[in-house]
Every structure is written in C-alpha cells, then in structure tokens.
C-alpha cells in the first residue's frame, strides 16, 4: 500500500463545485477524474485513491469507472497526445498510411510514448469529422484532410 496522496486545494475546489451540482457525491466521479487528469496529465493509482476518498466511495468502484472510459488515462502520457481516428471514413480515406508514417517518424506504435516524453500515440474511435478524413487530434487541436506530406509540419508544432 502506497502512501495516500492528497488532492490540491485547487482540485478540491473544482471537484466540490461539480459535487454541488448533483444530488450525491458519487455522481461527480467522472468530472473529478477529468479535473485531476487536467491538472496532472493522467490518473495514477495514488490520485485515484485520493479522489475516491474525497467522493466517499471505494477506490475499486472509482477504478471501474476510470477504466471504462477511453480518455481517462491510467498510465502516464507524453506532453502531447496524438489521437488518430481509425474509424470507417478515415479507413476509407487512408488512415493506415497516416499511421504508418507516424510509426516510422516517431518510432512508436499505438499505446506508446516516445522516450523523450514528447508524444503519445493512441487510436481514437471517430473524431466526428468524417467529411474531412483522415483526421487526428493533438491535445485539443483537430487536423483534417491529412496527407503524409503535412504530418511533419504538424508534428513540428509540438515540443
């Protein structure tokens, strides 16, 4: 058992705001996970126990929620998270080429992080921009109508 980590005052304020909007504390679970991930980049076991303590639920119950959702990160991620859409319209428009190029350039596959911590590459189920496929998202920025030629320029914008 590792030592209990505590939430920061800022995190607690934000989580308590969400708790105030719902009829019982547990209902703020997903928002609380999002808040901590926003501050720390991911949700470690220790962070998860701290959130569960604040929500007054068991860590296992919270973990069952955290691991259910694709975008709650339970492992550390790089400074920039690349979400490559692998859904059908992007498949038709050539996402496999884009993936191949990213793999060659970054030397990582899906689920991996570059050794310098600059990029994590993840597959993503549909980014909802099917008319402009193939597409990827880096952090909060969406890139569409991708070509291999454009990828270098896009990646160079992230450090």
């Amino acid at each position, binding site marked *: 058992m590792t030592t209990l980590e505590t939430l920061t005052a800022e995190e607690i304020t934000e989580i308590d705001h969400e708790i105030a909007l719902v009829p019982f504390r547990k209902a703020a*679970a997903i928002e609380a996970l999002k808040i901590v991930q926003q501050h720390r980049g991911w949700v470690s076991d220790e962070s998860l126990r701290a959130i569960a303590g604040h929500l007054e639920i068991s860590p296992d119950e919270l973990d069952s929620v955290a691991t259910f959702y694709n975008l709650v990160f339970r492992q550390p991620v790089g400074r920039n998270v690349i979400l490559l859409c692998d859904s059908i*319209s992007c498949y*038709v428009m050539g996402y496999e080429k884009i993936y191949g190029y990213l793999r060659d350039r970054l030397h990582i596959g899906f689920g991996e992080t570059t050794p310098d911590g600059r990029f994590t590459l993840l597959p993503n*189920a549909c980014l*909802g*921009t099917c008319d402009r496929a193939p597409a990827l998202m880096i952090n909060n920025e969406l890139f569409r109508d991708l070509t291999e030629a454009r990828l270098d320029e896009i990646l160079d914008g992230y450090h």
Partner: protein
Amino acid sequence: METPLTRHISFDRPPYNLSDYEKTGGYQALRKALTAMGPADITKTVQESDLKGRGGAGFNTGMKWSFVPMTGDHPIKYLICNADEMEPGTFKDRMLMEGNPHQLIEGMIISAFAIQANISYIFLRWAYKKAARLLRHAIDEAYAAGYLGKNILGTGYNLEMYLHTGVGRYICGEETALLNALEGKRATPRTKPPFPQISGLFGKPTIVNNVETFCNIPHIINNGPDWFKSLGGGSDAGTKIYGISGRVKRPGLWELPMGVTMRELIEVHAGGMANGYGFRGALPGGASTDFLVKEHLDVKLDFKSVAAAGSRLGTGTMIILDDHTCPVGFVHNLEHFFAQESCGWCTPCREGLPWTEKILLSIERGEGRLEDLQLLDMHTRFLGPGNTFCALAPGAMEPLQSALKYFREDFEKHINQKKCPWR
C-alpha cells in the same frame, strides 16, 4: 426549398451571437411557447408535426414526450440533449452546434417547458472542442438575457442548463447508458421498462433527444405542424441534415427535404464519385446500418423507404464503399470499432463481437476458411435483435449481414486466393 435548420448557418463568419440570433427571429418561438401555449399544446403540436427523432431510431418526438407524467407529485424532471454523436460516419450535429448554438438552446428550453423539467443537460461528445466553446458562450448569453435561469420571460418558469463533456465511449449515446454516465457511473445500458420518461436520470422522469431533433422545435412552434409536414418530400415530415463521407467529389452535409433519393444525394449534392472511383455500396445512416447497393440508388431516404429497402435511415449520414476499397476490410474496421466499444454488460455482445472481428481479420489476411462464412452468418443471428441487452450488437450486425449478402464473392475470393485481393 426551405432550410430552416441551416438558414442562418455560414462557416464564412462566426456563428450568430445572441443579438444576431434575435434579429433573425430567434427566441420568438420560446416567447410564443411560454406565453401563448401551455405544455400540453406544445407536446400536441410537436406530435402532430410528425417530427421523428433524428438520433437514429426515428420515434415520434411528441409521442415520446407524452409519456412523461404531467400530473401527480414530480418536483424534479430532466431534459437531456444527446450530443454524443460517436457513431462512425456521423458528423451532422457538429454543424448544428457549431453553426447556430442558440437554435439548439431555444429548442431545448421549449422542450423542457413542455415536460415541465427544471434541469437540462447537453451531453457533448468529447472531441467537439469548438462546439463546447460555442455552446458555453451561448448558454451564458441565454442566462444573461433571461432565457435560462429563474422566472424565464416573467412566466415563473425556471430552467438550469449544464454542458457535460464525455470521456469517450460510443455506448454513451445509448439513451439509458447516457443516464448512467451522467450519474458518474460506467455507461452500461439500463433495463427498460421503466422507460426514462418515467424513471430516468437519478430516478426522475427524463427526456433524451438528439441535437437535430431539438433544433427543429422552434421552427415547428413558429410555423405549425402542417408547415413542417409540407417540408418533407417522402413519407416523413420536415427537412433532414444528410451527409456523405468517403470517395465522393464533395463530402459534406446538406439540409434537404426528407425523402431525397440516394442518387440525388450522391450525384448532385456530393458531386458524384471521386475521379477514378466507382460506387459499390453505402451505409445510408452511419456505421450501424445495412448496406444499400446500386439497385437502391433511387430509394428515398426517409425512415419507411429505407426500411423497405432493407436498411435504416439511422442518422442520415452516408458512408460510401467505393470500388477500390476492400469490403472485408471495410466491415472488419466496423466490427473492430463495435467490439472495442461494447460495454461488456451482456455476454453475446462482449464475447460475440470480438469473435466476429477475429474471423473477419483472418479472412482479410487470407487465413480464412469457407466455414467462417457460416460462423459469421450465425453471429448475425445470435447477436441480432432480441438476443442482446441493447441495440449495439444488433446494430453492429447490420453492415455485416448485408455485406455477406451483397459482397459474398469478395469474402470467397479472400478465402480461395488466401490473400486480400485489394492489397
């Protein structure tokens, strides 16, 4: 041709702010609904308009609202906008939210008043960052103008509106799974009955409708049910946001009379197939609908006509299969998605979808056997309607069963040639 939903949408300029929206008649329907009509009148008007839910299922919206208890002691009711839109190939609600967020908010306030809900949520897909920013701003403007909050337009009616952004799971778009997600739980579907209209979010009466459905409401209130019916060109009322992705000249979204033909959508609006590509088939309404093929090009894209042709209108956003894309690879991609996004709650879906995916992958790689086609046929029945807890697995089987019907020779070629003939 009238295009009420997109009349004020132009991506060449920022979306309307509150005063722009008001100048073009915005929030007049809300005023009319709250001051000149009662909740029962609004529900009756929407029911008579024959507005069918635009999230995919196509159920009469007013009828759905009519199941909410309007007598007795129900101090808390909820109204929820399903803006999750995570079905691959579906991207229509994005345009409505990014293009005219106040239209959605106005539609939601009128709808909430109709069922006398005092709390509303927009459950927004995580990836829609721009829509989130615009909706937050529009909600703030609506509060500041007195369209949200306490004593709306001096009528004594109160409504709070919250924006909730998801954390990525397709199943969150299922009505009852969405409720669990909003309650901070795993998004597994719930048993019906009780239906959400009776026992929904936090056990209270709840209505969940799609973005496009809500966006129609102000126009129906302003212009009446007969006007709305007159917009449709097929057997359904109103207009529809249709979309196309894939190898066409101009992929995109268009608001057209309900019942436009597949041919017109593809050849006129999308400009036809891209140079060098031919049409083999299309999923007419997102990833969970059956293929339609060349012989169906003159089918009208309304709920009844598409059903008669053996598919579903779904969300009305079409994904094209061209003649350079492997149908087995296409279906494998879809089943990979569905297997990954199964919530795991019921065994047929949790076990059957990964099995289906593995079979398709082995066929695609040239490692399949002819018996595999029988196995796939079996799965389309065992994972079909009535055998699973919710509609995810039956939806997943729709493209597969129709691919086995229309593109069987492509599956057989993979098996006989022991490779993908398209690679």
